[in-house]
């Protein structure tokens, strides 16, 4: 869907901010770009919708060179979410969400319908929230309106620059789950820039790690944790945290086995990290697993331990 070819950005004589970078994001995938500040990840993102013009290289979206369009026309086709949401404070929620459809000269009725549809999609009662100002919303609601605004004109591609950075941890977790659900439903291709490895593992189908303008590795979270390409990637995926992150990638239903266990059950949709946590906290060796209120088996501490180690045959790094 998005193909970045030998992309570079230089400002004067300074070392390039993005250096000869190539990567590909498949349609319907969330690609999380991770790196320290100054690694060039935001510049990479902004070159995709040409908020920053590349010094060299090109970007193809659905096979089409982005340079064939004028900058503002390209940006109207690509959703864009920034940290701190950037909502227009003088416009109502409905006007904010309708920004791009209005620029594209949709009919009034079509815009209104789309606004209500998106508000409903993000669990905000349209009649209640349509006419509010951004200042009258909570931080989590503002963030949701920011994402709804980016999705208003049904873009195939959504770019997100630290979209959850301004939220507190509890709301951030909820917003991340919500984004994953909406993305799965709409099939939008997402490039998400973050410095939070936890977030990248939680949301990214693939993770791209950048350092000093270069792409170090682009792989699935499991692959990256099992086989980090460089010491930098290894440090980033976090030595001590790695088993827990590995566990957080899979759901309980993947590790369920027949058998009985005592104590309160865990839902099949929870992740394995939560299962481990429940085991440790309650001092049990196994937990009963439920799906829609029905017992479907159990998950054992031994199974969790197996899954927390690198895949069989992979030498421990």
């Amino acid at each position, binding site marked *: 869907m998005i193909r970045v070819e030998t992309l570079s950005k230089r400002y004067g004589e300074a070392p390039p901010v993005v250096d000869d970078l190539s990567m590909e994001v498949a349609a319907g995938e969330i690609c999380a770009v991770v790196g320290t500040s100054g690694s060039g990840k935001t510049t990479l993102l902004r070159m995709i*919708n040409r*908020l920053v013009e590349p010094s060299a290289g090109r970007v193809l979206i659905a096979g089409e060179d982005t340079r064939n369009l004028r900058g*503002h*026309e*390209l*940006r*109207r*086709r690509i959703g*864009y979410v*920034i*940290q*701190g*949401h*950037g*909502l*227009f*404070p*003088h416009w109502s929620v409905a006007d904010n969400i309708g*920004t*791009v459809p209005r*620029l594209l000269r949709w009919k009034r009725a079509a815009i209104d319908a789309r606004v209500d549809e998106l508000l409903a999609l993000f669990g905000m009662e349209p009649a209640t929230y349509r006419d509010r*100002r951004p*200042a*009258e919303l909570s931080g989590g609601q503002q963030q949701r309106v*920011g994402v709804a*605004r980016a999705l208003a004109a049904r873009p195939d591609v959504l*770019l997100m620059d630290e979209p959850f950075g301004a939220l507190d941890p509890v709301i951030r977790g909820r917003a991340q789950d919500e984004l994953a659900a909406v993305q799965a439903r709409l099939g939008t291709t997402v490039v998400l820039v973050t410095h939070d490895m936890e977030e990248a593992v939680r949301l990214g189908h693939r993770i791209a790690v950048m350092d000093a303008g270069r792409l170090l590795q682009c792989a699935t979270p499991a692959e990256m944790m099992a086989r980090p390409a460089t010491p930098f990637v290894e440090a980033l995926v976090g030595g001590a945290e790695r088993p827990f992150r590995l566990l957080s990638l899979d759901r309980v239903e993947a590790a369920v086995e027949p058998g009985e266990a005592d104590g309160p059950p865990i839902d099949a949709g929870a992740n394995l990290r939560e299962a481990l946590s429940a085991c440790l906290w309650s001092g049990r060796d196994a937990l009963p697993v439920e799906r829609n209120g029905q017992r479907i088996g159990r998950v054992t501490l031994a199974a969790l331990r197996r899954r927390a180690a690198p895949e069989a045959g992979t030498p421990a790094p």
Partner: protein
Amino acid sequence: MPVLAAPAAAWRRVDRLGVLIALVACLGAALPFALFRANRIVPGEGLAIASALPSPEAALLGLAVLAFLAAAALRVPPAVKLAAGAGLLALACVLVGRSAGFLTPPGNGFARVAPGSGFWTLGFAALLLAADALVRLRLPPLARVTVLALALALLGLLLWSGAWDGLSLLKEYGTRAERFWAEGRRHVALAFGSVAAACLVGLPLGLLCHRIKPLRAGLLSVLNILQTVPSIALFGLLIGPLAWVAANVPGARALGISGIGAAPAFVALVGYSLLPIVSNTVVGLAGVSRSVVEAARGMGMRRGQRLFRVELPLAAPVILTGIRIVLVQNIGIATVAALIGGGGFGVFVFQGVGQTAMDLVLLGAAPTVLLAFAAAVLLDAAVEALSGSNFREAAR
């Protein structure tokens, strides 16, 4: 310690600012309420309330002052204070007109009765209390404009009813009514026209300064220097260049440009207006959150769409504040334009100063103050309404 608590509680029932206002009102009641003069330029004889008014009216005014003192000094709801202030002001205004009829000997066309220092002091105290009460009431912008309109309507009614016709101010007006309105129109044209022209020049300049950073410091310091030139000096300094333009540029004279008159006054007023307008435009635009401008770009807004739909609306309260400063300032400075033949209410002020006829000075000064005050209230309300709609807080 109940013994000490009781006086403390009583003290808490006293409004400290109100006590001060009450003292001012006491002073006003003691000073001469009206001023009687045998003709318009001799010094007058001050008359206290008791001798300036027929006894029933004098008693009424005395009672009103007492009620006012109580409302001012005690902790009563702001609405009561507003009523007391507005009531005393209205009564004093009506009665000062009555005193003119009472004091002027029948058939005497030369005698003049003017409001005395007591009237002004009482009126000042009443206005102060009413204004303080209005602030405490925290009226929304539209309500404030309504109060202003109501006050102006009452003033108009007072003038139209002829209640003040015996006062020296209106006698001065009566002999030059036509001139008054002509100069009034010129004053308004000078003040508002110069602000409009300054907006036409200043807003684009401000925008340019916002976009091109190196320009900002230079332009703003030039405007800063311009701002510090005294107004009379600036009016004078412009006589030379404009006279030259009128003499040497074809068509300039036809446009009304000349060394003296309205043209240099207009140019000087525009010059004074530029700094507040340009700097407030720069500050207003710089105050728009970066993430909002960034989002506007990311959504695919073009430069002009960003400017008109996002940046200017968000900067509007600050820019409008600059325009408000300039408008009130120019309504005042336009008075000086009369010195170089520019016309306006200043004509009466300078004629009055020349003839030592204070009523004539007042005829020029009063409408100027009224105009500036009304403009300030209107634009303040507009600024608040705008910023309110931008950042209305949750009323959940």
